[in-house]
């Protein structure tokens, strides 16, 4: 990787970016609140042996120092406002059951620890792979008897952010074998399919051309360990499936819906490419 780091080679393009960016370079260590170091670089999972990628990198490493810095302090990270909102909703009764999440799941800091790290995940009773949002929606409609939140909208994103935070610092560890395997393979197929009038696959940019630039956009490996992410340009939270909607749209394609089976499969596959990176809770990108 030619990404600029204290130990890396500095590419010509990155030099020009650095030259235009005042302020100190943060470098390649993501330490939150001065005491929690997150894993932003790890060996690639075994199944990626034929991709040419030996090391996987969090998208945090590809952002400019000013953006990197915001994620390093929870008081600066605007995503934490949504986490607070999610925490409040966790304790608020809803639906015909008049039960809150806490009524069944108790203290989220205990019961939700590690959950985000293993989703999307096979659900035996339903016989499908569910994304974390899919599971939240299932709980809400089936257990609480409440109206569904729409996928990738403010409330469900805030709940995902709150649950994700309970796994911050834990390694992503989604299962790709057993009953999840066929869904994972579907996700892989989608990852390599060149969609739309621009005929671009996920792999075209994020596997073949990561660390290159499309205009000033520094292409990352497209890892989703940081999701949900607070996007500075959107001034709101974005989920992995929400980003997929935008990415596929930007290939001038008819995109899939955020809660489609296709994007759940893609989310599982892309998540698995990040097995070993830390869940970042709520990350910050531009």
């Amino acid at each position, binding site marked *: 990787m030619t990404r600029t780091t204290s130990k890396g080679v500095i590419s010509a393009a990155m030099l020009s970016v650095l030259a235009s960016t005042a302020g100190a370079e943060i470098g390649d260590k993501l330490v939150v609140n001065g005491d929690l170091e997150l894993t932003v670089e790890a060996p690639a999972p075994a199944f990626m042996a034929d991709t040419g990628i030996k090391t996987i990198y969090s998208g945090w490493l590809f952002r400019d120092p000013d953006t990197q810095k915001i994620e390093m302090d929870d008081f600066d990270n605007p995503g934490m406002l949504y986490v607070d909102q999610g925490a409040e909703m966790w304790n608020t009764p809803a639906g015909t059951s008049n039960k809150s999440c806490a009524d069944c799941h108790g203290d989220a800091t205990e019961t939700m620890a590690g959950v985000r790290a293993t989703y999307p995940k096979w659900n035996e009773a339903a016989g499908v792979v569910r994304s974390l949002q899919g599971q939240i929606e299932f709980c809400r409609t089936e257990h609480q008897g409440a109206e569904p939140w729409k996928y990738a909208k403010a409330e469900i994103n805030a709940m995902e952010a709150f649950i994700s935070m309970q796994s911050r610092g834990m390694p992503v560890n989604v299962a790709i074998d057993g009953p999840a395997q066929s869904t994972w393979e579907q996700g892989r197929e989608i990852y390599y399919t060149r969609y739309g009038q*621009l005929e671009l696959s996920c792999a075209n940019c994020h596997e073949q051309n990561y660390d290159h630039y*499309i*205009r000033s956009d520094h292409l990352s490996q497209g890892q989703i360990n940081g999701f949900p992410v607070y996007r500075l340009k959107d001034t709101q939270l974005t989920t992995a499936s929400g980003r997929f*909607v935008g990415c596929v749209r930007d*290939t001038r394609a008819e*995109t899939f819906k955020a809660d489609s089976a296709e994007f759940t499969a893609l989310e599982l596959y892309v998540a698995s490419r990040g097995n070993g990176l830390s869940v970042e809770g709520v990350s910050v990108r531009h």
Partner: protein
Amino acid sequence: MTRIITLASGLLAIATMAAAEDVAPSAVSFADGGAILASLSGMPGDPANGAVVMVDRTKGNCIACHQVTAINADFPGNVGPSLDGAGDRWDESQLRGIVSNAKMTFPDTVMPSFYKNSGYIRPGAAFTGKAPEGDLPPLLTAQEVEDVVAYLATLK
């Protein structure tokens, strides 16, 4: 600009005539190696407009991926090679083939095909994310391809 037309009616007449002479995207014939031998519009390209098409985000947007010293854009991309010297490396028919459908020259390239309008997987109506109603136009018109080719040929 080589095609200076002062009367609006004249412009309309010429434009209509030019459109009638375009080679349809589905009828483009590629020589061995991916070149296209004849002008797609039946007319010569205008290099000045070609440079405009290359930086226009709604048109070619070539500099999203390619650097061109003569254009001097802010933050050109580097997914594709620099186009400096393109006019030395390729002749006009080869440039026309690469701009129209680079996959005919470089089978594995990530470069979009700018003069093609079928064979897509889930094509959308521009950047709406929705399916198109009716046939999609190619990303560039025949004349715009010719204009870009004419500009690239000057990069020596």
